[in-house]
């Protein structure tokens, strides 16, 4: 066979249907498939899977115990009661858990950029940010999600409206967690390996979201709502669950949308600057 003939046989037909209608459905199938694969990977180590998830659940329970002790002694904290703090923990742990379970690579993006592991995702025809995010699942975070559901099931308002409000709160928290994390990790595109810094900023968000907004005054409030958007998560138990505070809710939704758009934009901007490394890496 001559080179020309060979060339013809190669372009003869493609077995991909990517240019056919039904793109959205295929995208969805891809995302679901990635999640089930992640879970299967985690199940490879069944015992440690259960153990780590259980540990995380226990960890959160210990914090609830701390607050139980606290409120046992002081009853009210600037208008917050134990019930509110429990819901706060449910939303914060739940939002974080959803991020780490379904978009588990979010907090590893800085490392992925710095070590050149983006290559594999870039060589494949799927939206890069989405593909990166869903390619890992933090097993321990499943414990966080379970914790959130458990606390809600035990202490939450289980009316239809209550469930809807809790679902919305979780969604807002998850979106803020995911895209704030993406943004701080994207710094690595510009200033090299920022793993430490990115992690600290991410950690600050997580930490702030687990304390009642009511303890912060002037400057603290400003940081909470303007710099690190933790306030939009940690005020949800009061501003959404207890009673809908419309200006706050609109603000929280706007911030979620803004972070999502900004994070995505920043990531794709950064891609243009991406300089892939040559480190020996294995996909884990």
């Amino acid at each position, binding site marked *: *066979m001559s*080179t*020309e*003939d*060979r*060339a*013809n*046989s*190669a*372009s003869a*037909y*493609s*077995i*991909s*249907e*990517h240019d056919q209608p039904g793109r959205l459905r*295929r995208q969805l*199938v*891809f995302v679901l*498939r*990635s999640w089930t*694969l992640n879970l*299967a*990977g985690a199940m*490879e180590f069944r015992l440690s899977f259960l153990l780590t998830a259980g540990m995380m659940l226990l960890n959160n329970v210990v914090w609830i115990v701390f607050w139980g002790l606290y409120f046992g002694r002081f009853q009210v904290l600037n208008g917050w009661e134990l019930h509110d703090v429990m819901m706060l923990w449910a939303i914060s742990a739940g939002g974080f858990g959803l991020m780490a379970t379904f978009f588990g690579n979010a907090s590893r993006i800085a490392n992925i950029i710095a070590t*050149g*592991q*983006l*290559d*594999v995702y*870039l*060589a*494949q*025809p*799927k939206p890069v940010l989405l*593909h990166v995010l869903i390619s890992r699942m933090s097993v321990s975070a499943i414990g966080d999600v379970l914790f959130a559901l458990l606390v809600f099931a035990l202490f939450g308002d289980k009316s239809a409206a209550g469930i809807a409000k809790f679902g919305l709160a979780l969604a807002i928290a998850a979106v803020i967690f995911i895209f704030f994390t993406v943004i701080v990790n994207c710094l690595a595109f510009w200033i*090299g390996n920022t793993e430490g810094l990115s992690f600290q900023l991410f950690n600050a968000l997580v930490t702030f979201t687990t304390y009642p907004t009511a303890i912060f005054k002037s400057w603290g409030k400003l940081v909470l709502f303007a710099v690190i958007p933790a306030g939009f998560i940690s005020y949800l138990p009061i501003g959404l669950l207890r009673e809908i505070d419309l200006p706050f809710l609109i603000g929280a939704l706007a911030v979620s949308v803004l972070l999502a758009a900004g994070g995505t934009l920043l990531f794709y901007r950064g891609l*243009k600057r*991406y*300089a*892939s490394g*040559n*480190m*020996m*890496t*294995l*996909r*884990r």
Partner: protein
Amino acid sequence: MSSIRVEQLGKAFRMKKKQEGLAGSVKSLLKPLYEDKAAVDGITFSARQGETVAFLGPNGAGKSTTIKMLTGILHPTSGFAEVLGCCPWTERTKLSYRIGSVFGQKSQLWYHLPPIDTFELMSRIYELRRGDYLQRRDELIKRFELEPYMHTPVRKLSLGERMRCEIAASLLHRPQVLFLDEPTIGLDVIVKQRIRQLIRELNEQEGTTVFLTSHDAGDIEQLCERAIVINYGRLVFNDRVEWMKQRYMTHKTIRLVLADDSGGMDVPGATIVERSGARLVLSVDTSLTTIEAALTDVMSSRRILDVTVEDPPMEEIITRMYGDFGEEVRTS
């Protein structure tokens, strides 16, 4: 029809210049000094559809950078490139459905899962038609002899088994061009041989353009029609492998350990590079004699305890090319 076309392609990296010592570290933190380093410095070449091209050069010559620009992973700082009529970095997604890539040092297989699962995911990523995918998968499993490993977690596979799975995975969607970045790195001779053979068969049967980087002269010799050699980001050689073999790969190195002293020995057609006691290193000019003849010659007078035959390293071939053309570039 040309499937790869590259003109004056260049990529410069901005490097932070680090000064020595603690004071230097602090200084570079406050006021970093930058330096532009050209990894690829204006190279031009093209490849026809169905051709097998070897992209060669020593470590750090700019091979990986070039292949990453051609697959759309990196954006170049200057120049132009076209793969299958697409600009890789602006039409990356569109192009990626039609090309396959294997990066020897970056695995696309899921570490804790068996390859069959990654294959399945790949079929979703490339949105393959179900029936076609299954047929294609079974065909590749058979051809690459992967049946025994398909259900073993990747972390338990050997490097060679893993590499075969990597290549098969990148072929699932029937790419028209296959980019391979150091596919044989770290493998032993027999596994290398097998992988070369598989790639050659693929090219012959499916007409896939194969573009492969390597710093192993053996890869091209057995696999490719044409060789492009770069060094320090510049093109050094671009011609048929045949010609390169005749002209520059004329020598092979034989390392011998003899039973007794090697003093006063002479092998026609070979020069003695190194001699210390019973150890002997010969450089055999294959245009004058064969390896077999040289070895027979040695054996006629000495007893051999150990022998290895090697290709000359890339660095040596390049030095010879420079010797021929000076700084000039030879292209056909």
